[in-house]
């Protein structure tokens, strides 16, 4: 291993900074004590309590509806857009436009959508959160898939069409399979983004269908409880697993 000398000090300190808070939450989730700051022994009871908490269960269901729906729609739209951007236009403006939803401040997007929904008189609820999550989701999918298309040879598709395959069968038998790892990675990223997204959901959701992050927000505002620690540990595990899976999908060695 080549030595990075004194640079290992800031590197290791930064990892400590990034992971110690997370580790503390996870460790405390196994704490038997109801007092959040006193360790009295190992227990899984807060995980049990989670599953019996009606509000959290409902929040979880709502979040899954939004995340799955947003992922499906954003993946389809984002993939088509990525192909269109890299094969059918050279416009840098369109490419930048397609990425803006991922860069625009979430609070600005959130209130913009709130204002628009209320202007057209649309009722808000899970459907409006879903519509909102698709817009940044499709930008992420488009970015991930575009990166992959750059490495794929377009002559395969041309050959397929020249040999008489319809545009339809070329798309499903050549384009989609070669891009599949990137499409799956993009979908996984949208799923975890939607699962954890709070600001936009907070402004575009209706009062009777809170998503899980909204439930968490109302819980943490009133202080520390052992149940939050358990919920946090589960969500961290889900996000980390999904992101690592997405990363493995886009590893260079997967290239055809």
């Amino acid at each position: 291993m080549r030595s990075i000398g004194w640079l290992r000090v800031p590197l290791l300190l930064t990892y400590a900074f990034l992971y110690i808070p997370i580790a503390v939450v996870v460790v405390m989730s196994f704490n038997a004590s109801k007092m959040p700051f006193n360790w009295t022994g190992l227990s899984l009871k807060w995980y049990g309590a989670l599953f019996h908490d009606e509000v959290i269960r409902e929040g979880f269901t709502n979040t899954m509806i939004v995340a799955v729906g947003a992922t499906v729609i954003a993946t389809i739209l984002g993939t088509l857009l990525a192909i269109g951007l890299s094969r059918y236009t050279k416009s840098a403006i369109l490419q930048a436009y397609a990425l803006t939803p991922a860069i625009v401040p979430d609070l600005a997007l959130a209130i913009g959508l709130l204002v628009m929904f209320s202007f057209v008189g649309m009722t808000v609820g899970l459907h409006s959160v879903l519509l909102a999550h698709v817009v940044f989701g499709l930008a992420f999918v488009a970015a991930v898939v575009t990166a992959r298309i750059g490495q794929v040879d377009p002559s395969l598709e041309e050959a397929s069409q020249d040999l008489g395959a319809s545009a339809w069968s070329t798309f499903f038998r050549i384009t989609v399979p070669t891009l599949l790892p990137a499409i799956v990675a993009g979908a996984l990223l949208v799923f975890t983004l939607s699962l954890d997204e709070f600001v936009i959901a907070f402004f575009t959701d209706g009062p009777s269908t809170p998503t899980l992050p909204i439930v968490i927000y109302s819980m943490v505002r009133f202080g520390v409880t052992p149940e939050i620690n358990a919920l946090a540990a589960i969500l961290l595990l889900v996000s980390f697993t999904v992101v690592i899976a997405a990363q493995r999908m886009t590893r260079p060695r997967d290239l055809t």
Partner: protein
Amino acid sequence: MPVVHGSGARRRRTRASRAIYLGPGLLYITLFMAIPMGFILSYAFLEKAPYGGVRLSFSLDSFTRALEPVYVSVLENTLLIASITTLLALVIGYPVAYAIAKLPPKWRTVAVILVVLPFWSNFLIRTYAWILLLNSEGIMNKGLLAVGVIDHPLALLYTREAVILGLLYAYLPLMILPLYASMERLDWSLLEAARNLGAGRARAFVDVTFPLTLPAAMIGAIFVFVPSVGNFIVPELLGGGKTVMVGNLVRDQFLKARDWPFGSVLALTMVGFLVLLFAVQGYVARRINIGDSRA
């Protein structure tokens, strides 16, 4: 790129494909991002109605209201906090990105994933973790008391420092990532050349490495600064409502005070910062002329 010099049928097919591929996504972005942004822009120039919403008459009241001393001081406070956060992120992120870029290739990927991973987890939970750490009965105070550094718990939570810490924790990966990307592609032979020509380490850094990584540092700074300005969760949870930032004002205008035009003006300032900073970044990147402003 499909070949288009073929038959007319083929050209028509290309045009149809273009519409099928590009149409739905661009239409969706227009409907659910561009038009909502247009709404904010228009609402900023309208008069507020008594119970939320607007009256359709032109007014600059919301802009003049934003210039009242109360709001100017919130803006100043926000800019100060976001600037300190960005500066700290740069000072910490730069050597970290440099260290990762210098690692052997097989370690680099792991090292980068470790930096990015926390960023993909729930924001509220990452902020909440600091309540556990900073609380008067929290780990930090307990540790310091046990060691005997302090004899009574420090008020760490609900301070401006806690807000800065929370923002830094949230957005540090966004600084490291672009910096690493540019350092990984850095032409290290330039640095060697500088050293061979007699430049010292410091001189080589100032004249070669720093200018080449400056565009990326600016991208990182934008990625940390802009969301810090618009964040209302960290000031609320770690600042305890004592630290009011622009994000809190925006939220309150939409959910409590119901002054949507004023909230729109405040939100526009956030978008304005984003656009302005990207413009500056683009200019600097072109001046440095490494042919890659995305670095």
